[in-house]
């Protein structure tokens, strides 16, 4: 049994997902079932397992390692899952979505993300990537009667499948050269040989696959379309969970298996990081739809995470984890507000729709302000500390150029975050009472994320210590 311990967190979530599917099958039409409660049970079980496994460095069959790095990301994914469950309720009721299918897909995707964060074998990373992607493709298009949602799902599916073919081709070359798909064996063999052209090809193809998943420029085209077409609660889930899982695997593969080839991939990653920050910010300024704006903002945040990955000194590796945590809480909060303003007749997702929100929903406006300022990196919010650590890691590692680009794009990005804040407080609303009432659970989830943002911003030491302690694995 002991060798199965490392997969317990994802097993809990998978069991909850299967239970949700079975519950949906036995549900009479119109009957209400507390299916989200099953997800809650599964995620709490995963959280308990994560705490118990902490510091034990368990490994299952050499394919899945529950080291502290993987467990920290698992923790982030549990937070993402809980917040997503909480903000999904109103969307499901309003759009009359099949609750069991929705929650089952969300939980399967979460299980895939956890597997991806803890996998230590390229093939298992590929399988986890597919488990999470297939579930998220369907979630994107779950509003079947909406042409935009179906179109978004297809674009996301097409580019996702295309990129996973590249990823797999990279794994094939890596396997051909080293005879193994295990990350540690690949590292041992690449360290002992001179870099062969085929090895560089393998690294390049795997890099393309990851860049698609973390929506790095120039592989970001699907992101705004998918986030705009998906229900806002799903967009929040995608933009945080998929990114956290993909970055965890990205860091693990590039800092363990492909670390000996660092000299070859670091320049390429430098260019990708710079382009990602610049394109995400500059195109984000031109958006008039809040969901597309948040999509470009999430692209830009991917660029900051790439800086942290590239400057992989001790500060940098801890910074990846801390940044992922604050970004996940903040971004899911922002999409949560968008989800709560969505009503059956109109999505209320243009920047102009936020005019006068302060008068109609003072609490939502205040929460949105916290989330946007944290995304922009204002002190005392968590986003400031996270960016501070990333940029100081970059300067220490000798990437001052990237740090400067990062600071400049952060300043520009403040413009489009503040545009919404100005809209909410200083522009009179056109029609009163156009926003739906806020359900209790979803509202409470948003308040909790806002509290966490202030906690991480004001007292980050404890979590930073955990993040720093958990990266010693590499």
């Amino acid at each position: 049994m002991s060798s199965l311990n490392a997969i317990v967190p994802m097993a809990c979530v998978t069991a909850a997902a299967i239970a949700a599917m079975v519950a949906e099958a036995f549900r009479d039409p119109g009957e209400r079932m507390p299916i989200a409660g099953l997800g809650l049970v599964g995620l709490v079980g995963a959280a308990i397992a994560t705490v118990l496994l902490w510091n034990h460095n368990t490994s299952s069959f050499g394919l899945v390692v529950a080291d502290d790095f993987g467990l920290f990301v698992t923790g982030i994914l549990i937070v993402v899952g809980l917040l997503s469950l909480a903000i999904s309720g109103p969307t499901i009721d309003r759009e009359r979505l099949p609750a069991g299918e929705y929650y089952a897909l969300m939980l399967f995707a979460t299980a895939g993300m956890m597997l991806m964060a803890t996998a230590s074998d390229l093939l298992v990373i590929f399988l986890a990537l597919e488990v999470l992607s297939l579930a998220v493709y369907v979630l994107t298009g779950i509003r079947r009667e909406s042409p935009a949602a179906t179109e978004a799902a297809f674009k996301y599916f097409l580019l996702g499948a295309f990129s996973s073919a590249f990823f797999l081709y990279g794994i094939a070359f890596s396997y051909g050269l080293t005879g193994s798909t295990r990350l540690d064996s690949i590292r041992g063999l690449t360290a002992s040989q001179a870099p062969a052209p085929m090895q560089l090809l393998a690294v390049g193809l795997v890099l393309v696959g990851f860049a698609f998943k973390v929506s790095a420029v120039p592989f970001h085209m699907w992101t705004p379309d998918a986030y705009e077409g998906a229900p806002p609660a799903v967009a929040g889930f995608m933009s945080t969970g998929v990114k956290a899982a993909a970055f965890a695997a990205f860091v693990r593969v590039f800092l363990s298996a492909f670390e000996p080839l660092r000299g070859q991939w670091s320049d390429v990653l430098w260019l990708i990081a710079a382009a990602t920050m610049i394109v995400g910010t500059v195109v984000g300024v031109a958006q008039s739809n809040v969901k597309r704006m948040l999509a470009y903002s999430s692209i830009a945040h991917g660029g900051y995470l790439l800086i942290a990955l590239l400057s992989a000194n001790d500060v940098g590796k801890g910074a990846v984890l801390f940044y992922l945590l604050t970004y996940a809480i903040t971004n899911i909060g922002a999409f949560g507000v968008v989800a709560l303003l969505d009503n059956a007749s109109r999505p209320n997702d243009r920047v102009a729709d936020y005019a006068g929100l302060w008068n109609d929903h003072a609490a939502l406006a205040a929460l949105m302000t916290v989330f946007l300022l944290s995304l922009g990196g204002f002190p005392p919010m968590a986003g400031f500390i996270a960016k501070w650590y990333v940029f100081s890691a970059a300067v220490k590692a000798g990437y001052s150029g990237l740090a400067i680009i990062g600071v400049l794009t952060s300043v520009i990005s403040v413009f489009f975050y503040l545009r919404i804040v100005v809209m909410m407080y200083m522009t009179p609303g056109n029609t009163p009472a156009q926003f739906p009432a806020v359900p209790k659970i979803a509202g409470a989830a948003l308040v909790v994320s806002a509290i966490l943002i202030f906690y991480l911003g004001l007292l980050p030491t404890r979590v930073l210590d955990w993040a720093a302690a958990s990266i010693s694995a590499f």
Partner: protein
Amino acid sequence: MMVTLDHYLVLSAILFSIGTAGVFVRRNLITILLSIEIMLNAVNLTFVAFGRALGSADGQIIVFFVMTVAAAEAAVGLAIVIGLFRHRESLNPDSFTALKW
């Protein structure tokens, strides 16, 4: 003539390129899905060829996983295509214009 590892690798590279080109060039959603399948099968050929060259069965076992994933992907992909067709009565990607930056 001896068929060596290089022959297999060149063949699979050609197949992969055909698939990649098909995704960009073809103007029918079903053909685009088939192009992605060609890419995945080119990768499968690479795995089998490497497995044989290395004298290990791993390469062939990996192919089973990839085939399963490809089948699941095709199921989801075709379902989405049917959903799209119901909205637009067309399989031409140029007719899908609800989302634009």
